[in-house]
Every structure is written in structure tokens, then in C-alpha cells.
């Protein structure tokens, strides 16, 4: 018979994970839908009662989004402007019920190509904290997610927090989601961006990411390079964006949209995002 554990201490959770092959649930919003019409009992580790995982905090260098922080927590947290993109993603995830229960960390671990947290967090140079009984590791988000539903999470590891460097706090950020209806919709394409300007208003750093157009959401290094050192001006940046900047994307042809449409929309959304960031 399947077991169920709901520890209140992180150390208990890590010991249990070290001992057995457990399925972790956080908000469980990806877990339960996968069980419809199936009967395949899992041994469950429910991390929802671990107080230490639920907070959004910061120290001198980093913001820390705990593994049990929900989308709602992100919406309601008092965060600097560089998180506006993540907040914009949060208010568009599912409906209010999903926002109230689903976690940002769960969204990363589930590793869907259309996971809405990934592009904004890639743009925030986020790292994930992976804890096991044997120790703590950190990885950049871009390395953590390896493919459709594949992550670098090893047996015994729990993702305990998402870290964002405070150095980006001065940046402006944004997020645009394209879906076929409002609320409760999986993205056809989404773009996220963060820009830091220098004193003279030129682009010092720009991080742009696109989701749902490849197995894993991607940054747009070529476009970022082309925008660096330029003034962030609506006309100019729109003039720079070109199809070649998206050449590395491999969007799917599926019932949500054709591949050609997705590529076309990438360009439009990126231009719009740049305009938004410039405004």
C-alpha cells in the first residue's frame, strides 16, 4: 500500500527522500490532473507543511523564493520592479484557484515547455537550490531544466528555493503571454525580459527569454548582444529585431498553433515587450 508523509521539518523530508523513492508534491496541481482515469498509487512526500519552504525572503545578495511559495504569494509580495515580469506571469497562470495553490518551484520542476515561470526567471538569471541529505547544490535555471518534463533533479534532492541576484533590482521587467482564451490557458508563446540601463540610458544588460517555442524556454543571446549599448527606444529596438534572432527556436506544430505562427508571434511579442520596457 502506498505511503504518505507530510513532515514539518525540512530535515525529515530530506531523510525520507534519501531512504525511498518518493513522489514529491507541492501544490499538487500538476500531480492530480495526471491521475485522471488512472489508478497508479505513488508513495507521496507532501512538502506543504514545511514552514521553512514557504517564504519569499532576501539576504544581502539574493532574493529567495521558497519551494512552497505559490503564485499568489508572488503576486502579493512586495518585490522590486525586476519581478514585475514574474508577477505578470503569476496573474495569468490558470485561474485564481491555481494561483492560490500552485507553486512557482513546482512549475519549474514539472518542466513543461509552456511553463510560465521559466522565461521570467531565466531573464532574472535565477538559480535553483537543490538540497539532499548529503548536501546543498545550486544550479543555474537554464541548466536545471533539461528537456520536456526533464530536469537535473537527482534522486534524494528537493528543490528548496529559487534565487535571484539582487544586483538586478534596478532592472525593469515584463512578460507577455499569448493564449487562445483568457484565463485557464496554456501559452502558445510567451516572452519575458529584463533590462538594466546605465546612467546615460543605454542598455547595460538585457535578458530576453521565449517559452513554448522549444523543448525548454530559451534566452535570445544574439538579440541581447545586438541591443547592448543601444538606447532603449521603441523605434530603434523594434528595427533591430529580426527573424534570425529566433533561428535557434524549434516550435511545435500542434493544436495550439502552427510552428510558423509561433515563430511569427515570437517576433511580434518581442518587439512589443521591448516597447513596453522602453515606455
Amino acid at each position: 500500500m502506498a505511503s504518505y508523509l507530510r513532515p514539518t521539518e525540512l530535515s525529515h523530508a530530506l531523510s525520507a527522500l534519501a531512504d525511498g523513492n518518493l513522489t514529491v508534491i507541492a501544490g499538487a496541481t500538476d500531480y492530480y490532473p495526471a491521475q485522471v482515469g488512472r489508478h497508479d498509487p505513488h508513495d507521496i512526500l507532501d512538502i506543504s507543511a514545511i514552514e521553512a519552504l514557504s517564504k519569499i525572503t532576501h539576504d544581502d545578495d539574493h532574493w529567495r523564493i521558497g519551494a512552497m511559495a505559490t503564485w499568489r504569494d508572488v503576486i502579493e509580495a512586495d518585490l522590486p520592479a525586476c519581478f514585475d515580469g514574474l508577477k505578470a506571469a503569476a496573474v495569468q497562470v490558470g485561474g485564481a484557484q491555481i494561483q492560490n495553490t500552485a507553486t512557482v518551484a513546482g512549475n519549474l520542476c514539472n518542466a513543461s515547455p509552456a511553463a510560465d515561470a521559466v522565461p521570467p526567471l531565466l531573464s532574472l538569471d535565477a538559480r535553483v537550490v537543490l538540497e539532499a541529505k548529503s548536501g546543498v547544490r545550486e544550479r543555474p535555471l537554464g541548466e536545471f531544466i533539461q528537456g520536456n518534463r526533464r530536469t537535473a533533479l537527482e534522486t534524494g534532492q528537493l528543490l528548496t528555493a529559487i534565487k535571484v541576484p539582487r544586483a538586478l533590482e534596478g532592472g525593469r521587467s515584463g512578460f507577455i503571454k499569448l493564449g487562445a482564451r483568457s484565463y485557464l490557458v496554456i501559452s502558445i508563446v510567451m516572452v519575458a525580459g529584463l533590462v538594466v540601463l546605465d546612467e546615460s540610458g543605454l542598455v547595460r544588460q538585457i535578458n530576453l527569454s521565449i517559452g513554448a517555442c522549444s523543448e525548454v524556454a530559451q534566452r535570445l543571446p544574439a538579440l541581447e548582444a545586438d541591443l547592448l549599448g543601444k538606447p532603449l527606444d521603441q523605434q530603434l529596438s523594434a528595427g533591430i529585431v529580426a527573424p534570425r534572432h529566433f533561428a535557434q527556436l524549434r516550435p511545435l506544430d500542434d493544436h495550439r498553433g502552427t510552428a510558423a505562427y509561433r515563430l511569427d508571434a515570437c517576433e511580434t511579442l518581442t518587439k512589443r515587450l521591448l516597447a513596453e520596457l522602453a515606455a
Partner: protein
Amino acid sequence: MSDDRVEMSFHLNGARREARLRPMARLSETLRDEFGYTSVKVGCDAGDCGACTVLLDGRQVCACLVPTARMDGAMVVSADGLAANGFLSRVQEAFLRHGAVQCGACIPGMLSAATEIAAAHAHPTRQQVRDGLGGVLCRCTGYQNIVDAVMDAGRDPDPWETPIGGAVGARLPRTDGVAKVDGSAIFGADGIPGDALWLRAVRSPHMAAKISIGDLAPLHERHPGLVKVLTAADIPGNKCYGIYPDLKDQPVFALDQVRFRGEAVLALVGERAALDAIPDDEVPITYAVLAPIVGLDAALETGARQIHEDKPDNILIAAALRRGEGDPSNCAHAASGDWRTSYVEHAYIEPEAGYAQRRGDRLEIHVTTQTPYMDRDEVALIMDLASEYVHIVPTVCGGGFGGKLDQSVQPMLALAAWLLDRPVACVFHRPESMMVTTKRHPARISARFGCDVDGRLCAAVMTADFDTGAYASWGPTVAGRVPVHGGGPYYWPNVAIDARAIFSNGPSCGAFRGFGVPQVALAHEALMDDLAARVGMDALEFRHLNALRAGNRTATGQLLAASAGLDQCLDALRPHWQAAQNQVRRHNAGGPIRRLGVGLGCMWYGCGNTGLSNPSQIRVTLSAAGRVTLYNGAVDIGQGSYTIMRQICADALGIGVDQIEQVTGDTDLTPDAGKTSASRQTYVTGRATELAGLDLRRQILRLANAEENAAITLTAGTLVVGETEVTLSRLEADGNGAVLVGNGVFDPPATALDANGQGEPYGTYAFAAQMALVEVDMELGTTKVIKIIAAHDVGKAINPTLVEGQIHGGIAQGLGLALMEEYLPGKTDNLHDYLIPTVGDMPEIEVILVEDPDPNGPQGAKGVGEPGLVPTAPAILAAIKSATGVGMHRVPATPDRLRAGILAREAAQ
């Protein structure tokens, strides 16, 4: 899932409780099964519908996604717990006041979400309300009245007033409203006895295959909780069912082959947990897979495999209409085009559910259904019983739209309960419901219309093929309706229309709000716009000029004697149309990226069955105690027939609505009022109700020898007619305690159509014109519908709030058809991938009711169930064309399709 129970303590619906519960059971399951809080509806178990929404520590959550363990130390409130001390909450009252409730399946979830909004904002904005309700789907209401209710929930409820003599036309709250807001209404899955066995069908994963069933003994050995495996061999009577007496082609369990993905091969009956533990691949079924026939082209190809032995060329039915000899090609102006539509899923929030029980030599089936009498007769044939031995008790029906007119759980449950003599229950899960039940027919339509130099329509030619899928279902009805309605609500001297329904190995297509008419309306309305442009006339004036009017003959040669109000609907739209066109012109002047567009859609719709008798009977009784009871078999699937029949009956009798008690749809208790479909209940059963009320009134007047307009006053045990008191207890009562019985029967005047489609297929027609204002993002191909103004000729609005609700809901489904709904077998078998409109997709809707009375309808009323949907998609597509110049010939007009159209047009220019 873990079965070890854990001790928990929590606050549930106002009470402190402690219990040992299964920690990983979904909270929805626990609230329903352990605590009996069946207001928590299960529409998907996947977070997609929001029907299970409850408040957990004051926050809305989908109970189907919450482990029960999280109740520990928490506070949980479901809709069952919103009323306090016998008083509804303000939010619940507001729902009743605003007509926010139809079938009710989404309502408990909506109320939970609304309660969270009300707690956070005393005066929420529309946007705040939308954000709060965005995660709860409603398939019935179009959301508008729900949003209005939530915005108005701060107000104290007013006392209801029930006018005497003026019940018809009054905005009375629903008769079944309170039970639907306090959570006590019993839907298909809610009343299942605790000792019931469960049934699960094992279904084909293949679209076409020969099947054989192996030795079942090992399965029984491995799973002691498995009580019986039912196969076709167990069926005593008809092994197949179907809507038409001569087309019973769909096996309860596959005989030797399966013809669509999801066809039931056998059913497992046993303890619920035991059934859950049997994976399908343990069941010894061998499939010899055949190449499936997918789509119209494959089905019609010469030499294509014949899907049914007795149906050559895979043609289920072909119907034609011929009137006049004229040809559009010889007209001064002609326009033509081809259109394609997709499978559309009903997506009612309540999946199929029910239970059956044997009572001696009778069968009793509690089921969510639109058609208890047809269920009774069909089950009787399958079980080889006389009809009287089958008793159908319809539960509250959580939405139907045509999808609950076919058999789903009924035959399997009947067979199991009969053989095992135990109550047996079955509830479809969402993917099963979507995979197995009927769909709207995908259509391929070619049409050519012509008019003269002055813009008078001359000739129409249309061919329409419908993919009817594996079994006949209501396919013939589509072919019946399409020729009649294909030319649209216009006067045509010459018409040639051919319609066919074609078998394939797709899902069976059946009845869905409009039976093929919404599909052809896309064609006739687009061609009307094209012709208007060719003639150089305004699109509205062109329609007005050609509108069918009283005194015209229709394409079937039927003389419309009265009640054809399309011209009045267009008159009502005209000022809005002109204003919207100016708005569009102004807005689009600078060539913005987000363009506005405005378009029109018109329709007509015959109420009742096509060219067939479809009578309804109603009985109204007066008891010795002075109580009036209406025996109403017109099943209320959310549209409001339990409310309006009381209104009609009250006015016919001349008493207050409150004084009419009601016994509703039950095949043992109520006379046959036919099925709830074809927009027939208000018109047909409504008329029967009026006649029954008048009949009873006549008898009462006779008792008192009173004149015709004498007032009737009923108080406990006494009846005063005019000035005369009649003591009822002196009269002899029948077996049901009735001293007087009023009967009403109405069968709409209709005649069968001849070989040329000529005849009088319907007793009356509803008419409508809608206008859509949309905004299209030219770069992304996304369409936002901003406003819809809907002018509907309903004859007489018995209850304007309910009529508007039907129109709002029809518009929501029309919007879905136009923009997002496309069922792809195997790919969109859930409400995550199959998109229906959410509260955020709905435009502002303004309904204009036109009342051109029908001489046969109750106080002039006609149907409105389907008409709300038909003109919406054409109006939206026309608006898209007005915005972009792109005529979309394929629905849904998804962003990628529309963007491709915009790019192609830009390239061509």
C-alpha cells in the same frame, strides 16, 4: 493512493470536526463521499472546470487538486455551508435575483469564488470579478448574469413579489433556484446509494477493429472485488440502440467490431476500489486493428470500406430540397464559397452519471438526461421489458445542449442492476465523457447565392456534407433541418439544397444546439454580406429587404401566416449598426494594429421536430385540500421549463404562481412531455400547459356555474369562484387525491416533407439578428469580441430573465464555435486542451426582445433554446472580415488561422 487513514481536525462548513481520513484522497472526493457535501461538483478532476471550487482558509481552491491532508487544522467552506441559520448569503441571493443560475452545475464553484471576491472587495470592479471567477467554467449562462450578481452582492435582498394574473412576462426567480444555490440539488452523481456497486466500461483505444473477448476467469480470480463482467451476450433484448426506430445501429457493447475510439466493449461491475485497481490492459480483449476511415474524403472515396453493412457508400442519409428552377449563375449578382467546420463538444459541466436499481420486476434508473421518455422506451427494448416496467427518474441535469439526448450510462446500468439485483452506479470521468458522447457534426458546405440588380434574392444552391461518425444517433435530423434552413431566414423563389450525413470512424455526431443549422448559417450569412457588397447595399438593409415576413412562403413552400419578426429584429439593430459602423470607421482610420470590425448574423429556426408529430401532454390537478399540482414532464436542463410552465399554468388558471405545486419529469408520475430539445418545450409543452390550465379552469368555473372571467381564489380546502364558495371535500377524489384534473395536449401543426423537401415541417419559427463588434490584433491574429447586441423574436417572453439567459448562453457557445472550439479525437479529450469560453472571453451582451406572437404558442411564445447560438458565429466572422478584410471559411478562427489569412491577404495585395 494512500489508503491509511490519518486523524485530522478542522472546521468544515461552520462546525469543528475530527475524522480519520485518507490523506491523498482529493478533497472533493472526501467532501462528497465522507461528509455528503455533494454541492462540490466534479467536472474534470483536473483543475480545468472549477466546479469543485471551495474555500480553504478563505481562499478559493479546486478541491479536486487538494490532498485531504491539507484540511488538517484548516477551515473549509463549500456552497453547502454558505447559508446560515436558514438564510441564504447575500451572494446566493444575488445569484437568484440576477438569473445567474441555469443548470446549476457550475454554481457551487461560482459561489465559492464569488464569496472570496465579496470578502476581499465590498464593491468589486468588473475586472476584479472576472479575475476572481476566471477559473470557473460555465457552459450555460455566458457569465454575464453571474458577473452582475457578484457585483451586486453587497445589496440587501428585496422581497419577491409574485403578481397574480401577470405571471407570464414576469422576471420570476427560478423555481429550482434555491436548491441550486444552497447545494441541495441532486445531480446525476449526487444521489448514489452507499451500497451501490460501480460500473466501468472498458473501451476501445482504436478507431476501427475486429474484437474478440478472451477467457474472463483469470480476471475474476485476480480481482475478487470484481462481481460481473457484462458483454453483449448478457443483453436480453435489442443489442443496439439508436434514436430512430429503423436506425438502431449502436451496440451497447461491441458485437464483433468497434467503429470509433472509445466504443464500449464490455463493462466491469464490482466494488469501486476493486474496479479502480483493474487496468484496462489486464482485460482480455484482442483487437485486430482496421485502417480507420477518418473524415469525409476518406469516407466518400470510391471503394472505401463500408462501415455499416446496410449503408452503401457510407451514406447515412441524403436529403434534398428543390423549389423553382432558377440558378444563381443567371442572376445579376452571384456570390459563392466553401466552408469547413470542426467537431464541437457539448462540454456540459456535469458528465454523464446515474444509478439503476431493480425493484421486483421493474427497473428504476436515476440519471441525468434530456429525454426520460425516450430513455424509458430504449431501455425497455434493450432489456426486453414492456415500457411500463422501466421507471426513469431524471436527476437535476447539469447541462445537456443535445448531448444528453442519447444513451450513455442508462443501458449498461439497467443491465447490471437487473442481473445483479443490486443498485449499480456509473459516473463518466471527463475524458470518457468527451471521447464517448456525441459531437456537433463537422461540415463541409459549398454554396452559391444570387440576387437581381435591386438586391432581391433570386436563387440559392447549397450542398452540405456532415461527418456523422460511427453511428447514426441524430444524424438524420441534421440532414432534415439543413435543407429547410440552408438559405437562411430570407425569401427565396428558387432553392436547391442537398445535405448528406456520412459515416466515418470518428465519434458519433448527434444533436447539438441547432442540429446543423449553425454550420450552414456561416455560409448563408457570409454570402448575404458578399451579395450586399456586390449590389452596393448596406448589409442590414439588404437583409431587411429580403427578410422572410408573414405572408411569405418559405423554401419548403410553407406559408408563414404570422410571427416572423426578422424585419423587426433588424429594425431594432439598425441604430446600433449604424453607430458601430461609424465607430469602426473612425477607429480604423489610421490603420492601427488593433482593428475594430462589426458584423451581422441572422437566423431562423423551426421549433419542434422536423416534419414529425411531437406532442406534449400536461396534467394539472386540484386536490380536495385545495392544492393545485402541475405534472410537468418537460425536463429542465437549465433552460427553465420548471419555472415557466408554472407561470403559464398560473395565468391560464388565474391563480398565483406560488399556489402551483409541481411534480417534475418522472416517467411514472408525469405524462409524456417529449424531449427537451429542438427548442420545443416552451412552445409545445408550454401550449399543452396552457391548455391543461384552461381545462382545469373551465371545470372549476362549471362547478360554480360562474362566468368566464370570474376570479378563482384558493385557500385551504375552499375554493371561491367569483362570489360562490365550493367545498372541495364534497367532490370525489381519484387515486391521486385529485378532485379535478385538467389535461392539455399539443402537437405542433407540421407535415412531412416530400421528395423535394416541400411541406410544412414546423409549427412556428423563431427569428433573430445579432451584431458583433470585435477587435482583431492584426499582428497576432487574436480576436476579442467586445460587444454583441442580440435581437430575438421570441413570440412572447414568458420570463424575460430566463429568455435573456438562454440567449447569453447561446452566444457564449456561438463565440466558442467561431473562435476556439475544436474537438480533436485523442488530442483534446479534456477541458485543458478543449477550450470553451471563460468569463474573460465574453463580450458585453445586450439583448433586445422582439415579441411577434405566434397564434399557437402559449400566450404567443416560441422557442429560444437554440436560436441564441445560431447567428453568433456568423456575426463574429463578418466582424472579423470587416476588421481585416479576411473572410474566414474555416472555424474555429484560431489566432494561427486568422494570422495566416491576414498574411496571405497582405501578400496578395
